[in-house]
């Protein structure tokens, strides 16, 4: 670190005038954005979100019937999120271990995010269940929905209201430089499924997952969107899941899922981002299950 010894504190600075002028332009943006965002009562927001959902529903599911999914899938998310850029959610497969047709596909919709259709997961034969836990950004008070498709081609939906705001335009994280330095670095851990002793697998990926909405107001530049948009996980040759997603996932994306114990082979992950970077890693099948972190050096 440099030393500025005995510098005079109080000489006037011309640099400041320039900085202020430049800043004036930047903040005009802010003022406009602020005016355009009148506060809305909860009820109005919820009504409006149903409108958002209707258009998403039409675009993605057409006229297909969507039944109440309470017995098929559940969505766990905090009602009031502490940190809007890291909201932990769990999609639980309620059909796992039941006799009903299994879930083959899941969609995650966050109505009020800039791109509401946030993720899609196609479950494969090596998935022990369709349960997925991840962390998302929430841009404003919103309904969060999970739509599940079962093997008999039926659709089910559950939704939850989440109070959080600013997750997508929140400042680029404190770890941005670190995330860039280690872009695509992955870790695989065995973790507990919620409070139980059941195990899930967690895939962690170093990636800044920049939304494209995070303005650096010094340069007036919006940091271009740069985010993980596809993740495929396999056990041996068998698919665990294939997924696509947007920047609704938090920085350093984390996915928890369940892999069938009896599927032979090593676990591998293939990750792709919207700048066509590809990252691949394989973890040898563990000798014995333990909640220890496994890190590879590849």
């Amino acid at each position, binding site marked *: 670190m440099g030393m500025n010894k005995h510098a005079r*504190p109080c000489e006037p600075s011309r*640099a400041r005038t320039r900085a202020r002028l430049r800043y004036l332009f930047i903040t005009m943006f*802010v*003022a406009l954005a602020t005016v355009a965002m009148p506060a809305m009562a909860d009820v109005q927001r919820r009504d409006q979100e149903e409108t958002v959902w209707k258009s998403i529903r039409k675009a993605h599911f057409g006229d297909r019937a969507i039944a109440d999914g309470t017995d098929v899938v559940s969505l766990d998310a905090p009602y009031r999120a502490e940190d809007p850029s890291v909201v*932990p959610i769990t999609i639980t497969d309620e059909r796992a271990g039941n006799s009903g047709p299994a879930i083959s596909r899941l969609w995650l919709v966050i109505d009020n995010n800039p791109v509401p259709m946030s993720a899609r997961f196609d479950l494969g034969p090596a998935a022990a269940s369709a349960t997925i836990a991840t962390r998302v950004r929430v841009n404003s008070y919103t309904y969060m929905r999970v739509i599940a498709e079962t093997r008999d081609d039926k659709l089910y939906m559950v939704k939850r209201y989440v109070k959080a705001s600013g997750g997508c335009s929140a400042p680029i994280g404190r770890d941005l430089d670190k995330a860039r330095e280690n872009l695509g670095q992955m870790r695989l851990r065995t973790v507990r499924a919620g409070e139980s002793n059941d195990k899930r697998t967690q895939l962690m990926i170093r990636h800044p997952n920049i939304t494209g909405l995070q303005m650096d107001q010094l340069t007036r530049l919006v940091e271009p969107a740069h985010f993980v948009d596809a993740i495929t996980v396999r056990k041996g040759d068998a698919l665990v899941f294939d997924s696509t997603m947007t920047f609704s996932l938090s920085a350093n994306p984390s996915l928890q899922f369940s892999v069938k114990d009896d599927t032979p082979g090593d676990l591998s992950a293939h990750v792709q981002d919207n700048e066509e970077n590809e990252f691949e890693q394989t973890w040898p099948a563990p000798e014995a299950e333990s909640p220890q972190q496994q890190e590879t050096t590849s």
Partner: protein
Amino acid sequence: MRITYWLAALAVLSGTSSVLADDVPQPLRVSEVAQGVFVHLGDQAEANRGNAGDIANIGFIVGDECVAVIDTGGTPQIGARLRAAISEQTATPVCCVINTHMHPDHVLGNRAFAADDTTFIAAAGFDSALAARSESYLTRMPETIGITADSSWIVLSDRQIDGAAKLDLGGREVTLQSWPTAHTDNDLTVYDEDTGTLWTGDLLFVDRVPSIDGSITGWLQVLDRLAENGTVGTVVPGHGPVKHDLARATAPERRYLETIRDDVRKAIADGYGLQHAVQHTGTQQRSRWLLFDAYHARNVTAAYTELEWE
């Protein structure tokens, strides 16, 4: 007796009107905690309509030629009231405003000093951190304190400190020190050599629960390094009462941060997820802190997402 009441009521009324009038700001209450070192203690609460954003400790140091202001409060009005308090104490001009970090309760009063020939000084990461967040800071103002904020509230630095620097206020020298990422990525402390007074900014919270907007491990390391200065007498925290023993003043915060760090590391090692950690970490600390419920869960989230990559 009755006349006294009326007089009191009048005094309150005139006080209120001078708070409202922009041109005649009512001086903030300050106390001289060491010779020439004045502190205004902010309200130990969230910014709200009642305190109008006056929640951080702010103040000034008076030299022979120069007054250095240390943080300016949460609105230009609070900054103007600080200015009024300064002119009650001294005719010496304000030539430096030092910002201890970019959080709004410490810097949104800057504008009140911008018209002067004042040099704004902050740590090297300050400008980019404030610029990236200013939109959300300004947007929140109507909701929290009921005042519409605009871009003129944002005053960036003229001079950036990376490491240590000395300021000569005329017959009085203060040392500025920037730190690696801790409470934020642009923490700056101010040490007045004459009186041994250390302004910690938000590297130290007293009674009010600390908030992590940087790095939990970095913060604990910086606390160790702060303790290396053995000559510190008076300690001015970013929030809470002024203290006179650095080690004792930092002990509760250190315990809080260590508890979170250790509990979260254990949760990660035991395979517990973020949600579990948020629900179970450090809850025994709850009774020791003001505003615990408002910040604790977010602190655990910040710690978890940092420590899981260790």
